[in-house]
């Protein structure tokens, strides 16, 4: 489904991501882990077009994404969430979802400006869809609250719901659990599993190792912009390079 070959990004003379290769197959849940500054979020930005790769290719269903605009890539089926909580702050929870359902069904300019019958029907579809997604993520009761008034955990989940509204085939989650308390982590992981079971392929960046290892079938480990390991959670956990990357090489390390 997603195939990354030789992906490289230089910021000035500094390489943030260097000759990265990995693939995500349809229906998989893949984890992307690594210490801070390893290039995980840069990789997300390169896949989704927010940054342009210096070198290499990103193939999605056979098409090269390098050079495409983020909104085109989103329309093709790759939708990402952001590390920082990102919602539309001036809207209520429901309005957030309605705005996010913009993609489908698409309403043309004149249709919308003139309030045609077909546009009104589509608008009702959008509203139904927004309600359905809110129920799916378990936020149905909060629909009329102003989005900024939500507790942190729910803001993050709203961010995921916004991404879902864009109908992703491949969902890129950038540290969805960051800043959550233990209870919120459980709820959020349940939701991510539910999204995956419903058929969305997932690529997950996460620092919560327990959650990432427990959920993903395959893990890709980055350090200093390069892939240092790839495999099942168990293989990765026992990998020497991975342990060194996380814990450093001590003087008396074997």
């Amino acid at each position, binding site marked *: 489904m997603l195939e990354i070959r030789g992906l490289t990004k230089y910021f000035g003379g500094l390489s943030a991501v260097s000759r990265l290769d990995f693939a995500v197959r349809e229906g998989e849940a893949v984890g992307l882990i690594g210490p801070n500054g390893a290039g995980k979020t840069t990789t997300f930005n390169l896949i*989704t077009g*927010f940054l342009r790769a210096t070198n290499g290719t990103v193939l999605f269903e056979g098409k090269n994404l390098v050079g495409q*605009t*983020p*909104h085109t890539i*989103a*329309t093709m089926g790759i*939708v*990402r969430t*952001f590390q920082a909580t*990102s*919602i*539309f*702050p*001036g*809207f209520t929870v429901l*309005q957030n979802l*309605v*705005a*996010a359902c*913009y*993609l489908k069904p698409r*309403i043309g*300019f004149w249709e*919308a*400006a*003139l*309030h045609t019958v077909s*546009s009104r029907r589509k*608008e009702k579809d*959008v509203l139904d869809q927004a309600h359905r997604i809110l129920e799916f993520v378990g936020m149905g009761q909060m629909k009329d609250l102003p989005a900024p008034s939500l507790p942190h955990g729910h803001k993050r989940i709203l961010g995921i719901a*916004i*991404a879902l*509204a*864009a109908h992703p085939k491949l969902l890129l989650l950038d540290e969805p659990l960051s800043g959550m308390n233990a209870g919120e982590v459980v709820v959020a992981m349940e939701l991510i599993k539910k999204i995956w079971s419903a058929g969305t392929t997932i690529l997950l960046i996460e620092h919560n190792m327990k959650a990432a290892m427990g959920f993903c079938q395959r893990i890709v480990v980055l350090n200093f912009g390069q892939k240092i390991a790839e495999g099942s959670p168990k293989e990765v956990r026992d990998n020497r390079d991975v342990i060194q990357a996380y814990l450093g090489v001590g003087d008396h390390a074997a």
Partner: protein
Amino acid sequence: MDKKRTALTCVLIVALFLLPLVVTGPYQLHVLIMMGIAVILSSSLRLIFNLGQLSLGHGGMMTFGAYTTALLVTKLGVSTWLALGAGAAAGALLALLVGYPFVRLKGIYFSLVTVFLAEVIRLIAEQWQSLTGGTMGISNIPGPDTIAIHGLFSIAFASKVSFYYLTLILVLFTLIALYALERSRIGLTWFSVRESDFLAESIGVDTASSKVLGFCIGSFFAGLAGGLYCQYNSIITPSAFGFAYAMYVLIYMIVGGSQKFSGPIIGAIILSLLPEVARPLKEYQPYIFGGVVILVMFFLPRGLVTLPRRLMTLLGGR
């Protein structure tokens, strides 16, 4: 509540149509016409502003529209009504031409390039003397042609009253169009772009095109106001609507309240009446204007539109 508001709006519109029965002085009508033009500008500026882009070149777009209308009529003999529409279209077209590069710039950088664009328009109008008449501008611009249906009626645009009605109709056209757009899903998309453009982009909204579309529509109405002004005033000069005028339009929008649709309308009406009310104070006029603007900014940061609610809570609190 909504029915009440619709009824109130209808009453207001009828009152505006009947106003020339009471207000007959040519000077008063002139103030009303200029007020209408200010309403078109401040409301259309708000559309661009609501996309997170503050244009300070709105006066330039107006000048561009005015020159287009004036030149088409005086040099090419195009029909006056067509030229009025062409002035509006010229504003939109210019916005489309510069839009894609401009919207790559955010915040103050976008504002600056719009100032430069307005300056370029002014300089071209000043320097290209053979075409534009230089600093003297273009004069003797004819007003709109008489509308006549043989034997039934005819409306000639010679008196102030007729221009008052023309302005009123164009203001209503502008406001209805802007309101319909804002309430549609296009408006919702525009709001989401303003709220967080990278989030909107990440879920598939073409944010650059959305911003350009808003810039084009906003500039369309600035061009329309320009065409109307030059036909009304019969003369247009390069600096009639310069940076200072763009700042006034911005002040109307902000002091009125940019978050509400009615904000720029109320701002333009009250603040363009203010100098007239303060006229007996002669040279102190600008102080009154400045003082009111500063007071509103401090005590009603969301604009004059919030005044009734503020008063109600103040009175209700006692």
